[in-house]
């Protein structure tokens, strides 16, 4: 299992590549910086909130979606593990390596963008360090939930095309706060950023839901794979 996990992690890393990651991080940071600067000009007080809302509603899911797509080579999760699983290593161990690698890669792209964007939004105003720390924590939680969800979706439909479906459903249903919104990370992340509570859940409970979604979907994805 350890060899399978390590090999899965390295296989995922070899597919993502540092250069792609660096380009994505730079482009993401530039976009966040540009957004925050533009919003700050119009409304300095709402710039941080605006940046975080946009970042967590659109940026984070799209980054996780793209990274998981690259890790599984836009195929199904089972097929993506084949280069390593062919040697008799557990597909589940390999997929776990995929999940951790994709989660870390999402953070590598999102974290600098958030930090730079928030820096531009605050521009020396107090509150930057604490907001930045909270945002990075949310990014870690949200990335985990999205990566797990997309990996689970990669086990369904031909070539894991359910990934796109999950992205759309999260966008549509995650915009609300009703029971339909409850499984979708977007709704809970919005709640944690000060939006309406999902099904009257507290922010602490929403955090727990995100953690459960992250671990649960990843576990479910692994369980759907044959050894």
């Amino acid at each position: 299992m350890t060899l399978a996990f390590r090999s899965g992690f390295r296989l995922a890393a070899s597919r993502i590549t540092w250069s792609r990651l660096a380009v994505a991080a730079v482009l993401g940071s530039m976009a966040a910086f540009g957004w925050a600067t533009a919003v700050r000009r119009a409304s300095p007080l709402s710039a941080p909130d605006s940046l975080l809302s946009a970042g967590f509603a659109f940026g984070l899911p799209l980054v996780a979606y793209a990274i998981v797509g690259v890790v599984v080579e836009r195929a199904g999760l089972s097929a993506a593990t084949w280069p390593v699983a062919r040697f008799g290593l557990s597909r589940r161990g390999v997929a776990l390596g995929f999940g951790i690698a994709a989660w870390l890669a999402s953070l590598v792209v999102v974290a600098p963008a958030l930090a730079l964007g928030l820096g531009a939004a605050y521009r020396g105003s107090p509150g930057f360090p604490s907001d930045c720390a909270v945002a990075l924590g949310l990014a870690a939680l949200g990335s985990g939930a999205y990566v797990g969800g997309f990996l689970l979706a990669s086990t369904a439909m031909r070539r894991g095309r359910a990934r796109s479906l999950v992205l759309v459903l999260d966008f549509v249903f995650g915009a609300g706060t009703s029971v339909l919104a409850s499984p979708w990370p977007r709704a809970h992340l919005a709640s944690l950023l000060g939006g309406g509570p999902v099904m009257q859940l507290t922010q602490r409970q929403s955090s727990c839901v995100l953690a459960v979604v992250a671990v649960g979907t990843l576990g479910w994805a692994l369980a759907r794979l044959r050894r």
Partner: protein
Amino acid sequence: MSSAGQAQAALSLLRLGGRDTLGPNAGALGRVNGLDWSLGPGLHAVVGAPADGTAALAGLLAGEYPPESGEVRLRGARPFDDATCRARIGALLPKTRLFGRTVSDVVSLARAANGGADPLSPLGLEALAARTVSSLSVGEARALELALALSHPEPWLLVFYEPWSLVAGVETAALREALLRRATDTPIALLVSAPSDVATLAETVHLLDAGRWAAADGGRGWCARAARNLVLVLDDRDGVAARGMAQALSDHVLDARAISWSRLDDDPMASVVTVAANDLEAAAIVLVRLCAERAVTVRSISTPLIERDTLLAMVRSPHAEVRG
């Protein structure tokens, strides 16, 4: 056509159906339907085009693709479901998917997973060791996969898809020798599109056409390496007697390498049972005893050896002619 079991069969296909993902948008290039096959140690060839299902069959045997129906059983385990079973399969598949930055990385991973000796030296591929995987041509990558499969220390099954095509730097003679050496204790499935690749090498040959067995040794097919096949033609209107004989033979001919049965295409009242065994005399005695016990009328028993040219003419002729 159906193929019955074999004593001590290491690999069994039971009504196997499945497809590859080599077509556009990961669609199927070829698929197989309801294949029955049992084989033990030895070289067993399947002749057919990728669109006839050879590529799908290779992936199904190696555990790359899940069966859509039926199952693959390798020593009781299913390769797709069981990592331990996959660890004992060496395979050269249609699509090379090597993981690692360098060839040494690939070799290290294979050896960490399966153990085994240096795979490159026996085939004279030492020069690849220092290369990066991305620098390998398709032929070199296939040669590396071939070497990895052949160097497996204790394989339960070796699967080679077109081992003579697009494989760079491997001598044909060295490959034949290596295959024959491994075949003494390991079932080897050779999936090829040219019958000439296996005509003098394989012990049993099956022709795959549109996902089904169209011919096999002795049926409307041919005898492969050495005349170690007994072909029995029975009076049999519906194939029941032939099927029953094939099953009984699999229990009684202990050194059988393969047993198959088929309807005789040009005579609806007859069926053919073919036995490939090391001791043909012993097999013939068992066969006669079983025929007597089962009151089966035997039209002929023979050990045919069809000439290579005849075989080529058969396989190159339109499919309708091959199938009768």
